[in-house]
């Protein structure tokens, strides 16, 4: 036994005398990767990029995957919640408080979480000497698109928002709100750069960002900024690509749809929209039902009313609900959430052309959508329509084509300046002119003293 003690003691002595400094030098954890290693190879750089796709696609309360759709539809005149839920109520009645948890977790925080990821990858690629040029360009372009997409919705929903283009938290954490016009400039810049960096690799399906997807979003951005010529030009680039075509109504949101410019490929189920909008059974109340006003906007004979809307009758009340995405169950996966689709691009070009007084081509674009819905073409029914009437028709078409999708209605009401008149009538005394912007989450105001609150929420 004492021999063992001696050995133990010798061992102890050796360990003691050996360099303690060395002892403390531990390798990085096996379960994680150091940033410096990630941008050493094309493969891991790709993983860092796809990491963001995966996060957004599989996050059920992601800003850019469901949340905008669900909550903007309530804020606008599209849907109402059928259950008792304080958060839903606040959006529906436009009585949002800055303490609303959805605002914080599903919108603001979530958006910036992902914007950080884009900036980290962009910076990593920029500094990398090992990633090949083509991969670098492609991945940088994809990240620029996603950065622009998140900023786009932030600036639309909240107004002035801090613009994040780096990962330096020392600067970012206390940044004040950036003027909306500067944010818009950055969005435009990001998308233009992205559309030059991304080579339109047709091998990729629409679950990755293509050059066309960048052009599509850029067309929308130009439209929102009133840059009609540019909007038309970008829209035409997309429409001119043979990859895309309008699908029949029931196929628009299916995997393989040619109408979709870009969609999220969820690994773990069908779409967030499907799981949130569809009722559990034919006798159950759907969680969100369509407002009567929207129902009456559909013209008679509009196929979308039957293909994209369904109803359940519960306790004698009829509840209409969005049925664009038709699968509620998790598997098998047959549908994907479309971020942007060709129908919108036609409507963008129609609007841009109208504003440039190119009415006849605008009518053609509008008729693409109308005829797909089984409606009479405007070219036949009213070829001499006035510019104002045509614009109205385009907005109404947008309302019924893009309902319950990505807050299109909410943003259209705002950018057309109609929100106050239309929502003021529908929402009654709850509606205030300041409701067109959401409040900044109180939590953020408390952690960043340089942030200011939107009017009406102080």
């Amino acid at each position, binding site marked *: 036994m004492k021999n063992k003690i001696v050995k133990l003691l010798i061992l102890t002595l050796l360990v003691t005398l050996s360099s303690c400094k060395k002892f403390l030098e531990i390798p990085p954890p096996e379960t994680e990767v150091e940033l410096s290693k990630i941008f050493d190879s094309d493969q891991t750089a790709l993983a860092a990029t796809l990491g963001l796709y995966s996060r957004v696609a599989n996050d059920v309360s992601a800003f850019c995957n469901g949340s905008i759709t669900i909550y903007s539809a309530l804020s606008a005149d599209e849907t109402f919640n059928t259950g008792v839920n304080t958060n839903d109520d606040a959006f529906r009645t436009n009585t949002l408080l800055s303490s609303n948890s959805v605002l914080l977790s599903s919108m603001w925080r979530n958006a910036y*979480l992902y914007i950080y990821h884009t900036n980290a990858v962009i910076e990593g690629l920029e500094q990398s000497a090992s990633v090949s040029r083509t991969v670098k360009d492609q991945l940088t372009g994809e990240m620029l698109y996603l950065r622009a997409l998140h900023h786009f919705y932030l600036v639309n929903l909240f107004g002035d928002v801090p613009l994040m283009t780096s990962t330096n938290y020392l600067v970012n954490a206390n940044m004040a709100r950036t003027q909306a016009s500067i944010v818009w400039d950055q969005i435009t810049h990001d998308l233009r750069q992205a559309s030059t960096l991304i080579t339109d690799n047709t091998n990729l399906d629409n679950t990755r960002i293509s050059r066309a997807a960048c052009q599509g979003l850029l067309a929308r951005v130009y439209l929102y900024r009133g840059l009609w010529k540019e909007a038309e030009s970008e829209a035409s680039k997309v429409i001119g690509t043979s990859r895309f075509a309008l699908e029949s109504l029931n196929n628009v949101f299916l995997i393989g749809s040619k109408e979709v410019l870009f969609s999220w490929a969820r690994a773990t189920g069908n779409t967030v929209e499907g799981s949130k909008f569809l009722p559990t059974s034919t006798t159950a109340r759907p969680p969100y039902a369509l407002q009567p006003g929207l129902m009456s906007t559909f013209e008679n004979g509009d196929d979308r009313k039957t293909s994209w809307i369904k109803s359940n009758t519960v306790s004698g009340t009829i509840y209409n609900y969005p049925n664009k995405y038709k699968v509620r169950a998790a598997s098998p996966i047959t549908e994907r959430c479309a971020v942007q689709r060709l129908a919108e691009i036609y409507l963008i070009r129609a609007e841009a052309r109208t504003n440039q007084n190119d009415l006849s081509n605008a009518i053609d674009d509008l008729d693409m959508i109308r005829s797909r819905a089984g409606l009479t073409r405007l070219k036949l029914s009213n070829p001499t329509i006035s510019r104002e009437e045509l614009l109205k028709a385009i907005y109404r078409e947008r309302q019924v084509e893009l309902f319950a999708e990505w807050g299109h209605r909410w943003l259209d009401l705002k950018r057309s300046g109609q929100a106050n008149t239309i929502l003021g009538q529908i929402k009654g005394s709850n509606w205030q002119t300041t409701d067109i912007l959401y409040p900044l989450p109180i939590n953020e105001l408390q952690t960043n003293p340089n942030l200011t609150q939107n009017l009406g929420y102080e």
Partner: protein
Amino acid sequence: MSAQPTIYQPTKTKSMNFYTCFHNAYGEKWKRICMRIPLNKPEVLFRYITTIPMRTNVVVLMLAFFCFLNTSRAFGQGISISVKKQPLESVFKIIEKQSGYLFWCEKELLQKARPVDLTINNATIEQALNACLKEQDLSYAIKGKTIVIKAKDKASEKKSINSKGLVVTGQVTSENASVLPGVSIRQKGSQRTTVTDKEGKFSIEVTDFNAILQFSYVGYELKEVRASNAEAVSLAASTSKLDEVQVIAYGTTTRRLSTSSISTIKAADIENQPVSNPLAALQGRVPGLLISQTSGVAGSAFKVQLRGQTSLDPSLSQNNPLFIIDGIPFEAGNTAANQINSAANNPTSISSGGLSPLNTLNPQDIESIDVLKDADATSIYGNRGANGVILITTKKGQAGKTNVRANVYSGISRIGRSMDMLDTKEYIAVRKEAMENDGIKPGLNPAVAGYAPDLLSWDTTRYTDFKKLLIGNTGHSTNYKISVSGGNTGTQFIVGAGYNKQTSVYPGSFADNVISFNTGITHQSQNKRFNLIFSANYANDRNTLPRYDLTRYINLPPNLKLYNDDGSLSWSENGVAYATVNNHTNPLSYTLQMYDAQNENLSGSLSLSYQILEGLKLKVTSGYNRFIADEKTNKPSASIDPIFDGIVLPSAEFANQKTSSWIVEPQLEYTLPAEKSGFNILLGNTIQNKQNVGQYLTGFDYTSDILLGSIRGAGRIDASNINTLYRYTAFFGRINYNFANRYILNVSARRDGSSRFSPEQRWANFAAVGIAWIFTEENFLKNLLPLMSFGKLRGSYGTTGNDQIGDYKFLNLWTNTLNPYNNVPGLYPRSLYNPTYEWEINNKLELGLDMGFLKDRLLVTLAYYRNRSNNQLINYKLASQSGFTSVIQNSPAEVENTGFEFTMTSKNFERHDFSWSTSVNISIPRNRLISFPNLSGSSYASRYQEGRSLNLIRGYKFLYLDQQTGIYKFEDVNGDGLLNSGSDYQFLANTDPKFFGGLQNNISFKNFDLQFFFQYNRQTGASYISKLANTVPGYIYNQPSIVLERWLAPGQQSNIEKFTATPGSAAALSYSYFGNSDGAYTDASFLRLKNLSLGYQFKGNWLSKIHLSALKVYVESQNLLTITSYKGPDPETQDFYVLPPLRTVVAGIQLNL
């Protein structure tokens, strides 16, 4: 013990004279050192040996150590001699052979010596020498391995009269005949004093032979002896609490001699509490230590805070103290053991609560718990000591008869204080009144105010008492403990096993089962140079619980239908699904979602020490600790709300985590025993390695419940794993200098390195100094303070650190995403990284006064402390626009905790068959944020305020309930007529305890033994109304009966608003303001009869006839009574949705064979 030395084999030594054998006995390397020793001068020799450590380096000492080990190989047993009329020289030879000691003696003396008659058996070297020199005019001294024989100084042995006066000489020994050096002797009423020398001998001048001599010595009772009888004085060991052993870092001390702030709780106070977690047994007993129960669930966690909160960021550091069991860090500590959440977690704030790893430590195995508080005590733990250190020492065996001890108890538990809820009739009335108040009618359109399926669609005559159903059952506690201990003077052992089972108060069969085993071996070699302490413990804690704490659901509408006619769980009634009504659910579904955790703790420690030279000890402590948490839970189809049909399929979760740690701590300790002063130096090194490996598997989309146990049966699997490594190393030293047991100085220092910091910031130094002045040892004060038997002033100042920030935080790490994208795995940034953060250092100051009165029958301790923490490592909150909500960095803020602590122990009565003792402790803490540069510009502006506590209540200032409208009124700071959090929030109060402590009484009368312990806490806490902000009375939630005291008519005074059923109504809004106001806080002070135990000890001869040495029966109770004016369920958990602490009563029997 009279074991024959059967193993002993005399080694063959060549015949040599006493001079030479000394030289040759050691190895070559040692010889070189020895050769220079002046052997002819024993006094010089002694000094020489003791100075060696100063001159030689560690390597030489180590080698020396091995040499000694070799020479002492055969001498494990005692000395046995049986001789008749033998020359002394040959007896010495026998002793030499048997002991390994060597004699040094002038030949002349040997020749003069008388022949020896001697019979001794298994004796120590001292006993042997005392016996064989009894009749001789010789004395001896042991120097290391050498025994020096000298002639007795005859002159000094006799009382004589010299020119100065009478001189008395003598020797002082303890009761067991060992000599006592350093005993103070003084002639009573005079200034004549002396102290005994190394052999316990003394010589003192006295005025006359009838003078009274007072003998005092630390750890022994004071003795008065007439000078004429002082030739041989034996002192009795002290029974004062001051002399009980206190365990400190790398050693022990006593309350008397300690310079630090340490509180010790002994087994006697722990054993009689029917609890499974040692933390429960500590509640209220240690001043400065605030322990609060997070939940009444068996096995759940306790919040532990020593001397206040220092952390600005409770998410990063909970300010948990360091737990050390038998010298080895208990790595699982006090952080929750579980990865999967269960009923042990707070259902509304999942991050709090959880399962306590310390539940694997059987309180009955604990000998003592020492809580180290100030810098002097904790600085030597370096970076780990910032939040204090709790040293747990397990029981060890005692020499003597083998002792078999068995203890069994059994009893019942029910929930303690809780709130009564409305029955259906009252509930319906509340709902209807609320609608009337709002001027609305109950309807079935959810988009229209007045939606009331509970009144219109659901049966309004049905009544379920959810409190009774969900948490109103009776839990059963059973505990078995058996331990066997014994041994001889050289080796002692203890082995034991325990089993504890507590069933829950939930419906269904849920229980916490802990099986534990403990072993302990202590050994000391015959020559007392080699010491070994080994202990090993194993425990398996299996806890089955529902997935969520069902207390969360006691406020379901009391007419909710639970079962369908076919006996299956009901999820809707008349087409209205519960999930669409305030997200209600069928709570019984969670009893189907079984959570099953198995926590295993294995720990072993071995401490070896060897006395190289007199006073010089080499010690190596090593230990291994492994904590495994293995959990699973599942969600069978019957527990899934059909509203999620097709979306949520049966699923199962499997998680395991293994934390294993080894530690080695070589130490070198040198003690200089001297007549007037004691000097102790400790040098050491710590090397620690901790690995944490774990997995978390979630299986989704099972097609059938029968596959739920298998991860392969899942349709889809999410898997993640962790593997982290933590390394820590340090050098430490401590010098303790004790001058005449009067002035004591303790200095410690440590240099720490931790792998949790980037290489540039890796090392840090910590140091502390403690001083004590035992003023009652001063002669000029002894007469001034006749009632005071002990008085000590002490103070300490020093630094401690903290590296509890998690591993690898200085690296920029990316982690795999949960799911691949298009089948390619993804990566994402885990957190912001900051490579520049440095050590956090805390400064601690302490002043203490320890006093004993009336021969230590009354002991009082007063302490003041001031701990300051700055450069704190925190998860600095960031606006989420930065991408994350926090980053680890050093905070510029400085936090101060100050406080007074008072402890009093009193033996009120001590008679033959009646004794009564009381102990009281009070802590008055104060927490303050001293400074926070640029606080207003930081993310903490809305949370903290300079000069105030960290636990601030910030919100609206509640004014009153408007007697005209029945609505709460709040202060509108900026007078804009609106209430909003930005401009109208104020800092109002804090939730720190004002004071807390405990009161213990032990009374024994004849065979009866009664102990009761009160815990008290004066504090402000959240009332039940704070939980009503979102479940407003009048909504579709049941309410505590107390809401019936609501406002009804103008002019009425009330605490509770009028009912309302409409979200957004003035009354509802004002409820939500109320939840964010100081009105939601109330006095949550309480006095709790924490423990009551009554025992009856059987006595009489009949016990031995049935071979029992002791037999006791007892009843014990925990949380029997709580006195409080708190408006809510339990003032400790302060949460309406959390199971209140249980009230337990058990009866048991304890017997010793």
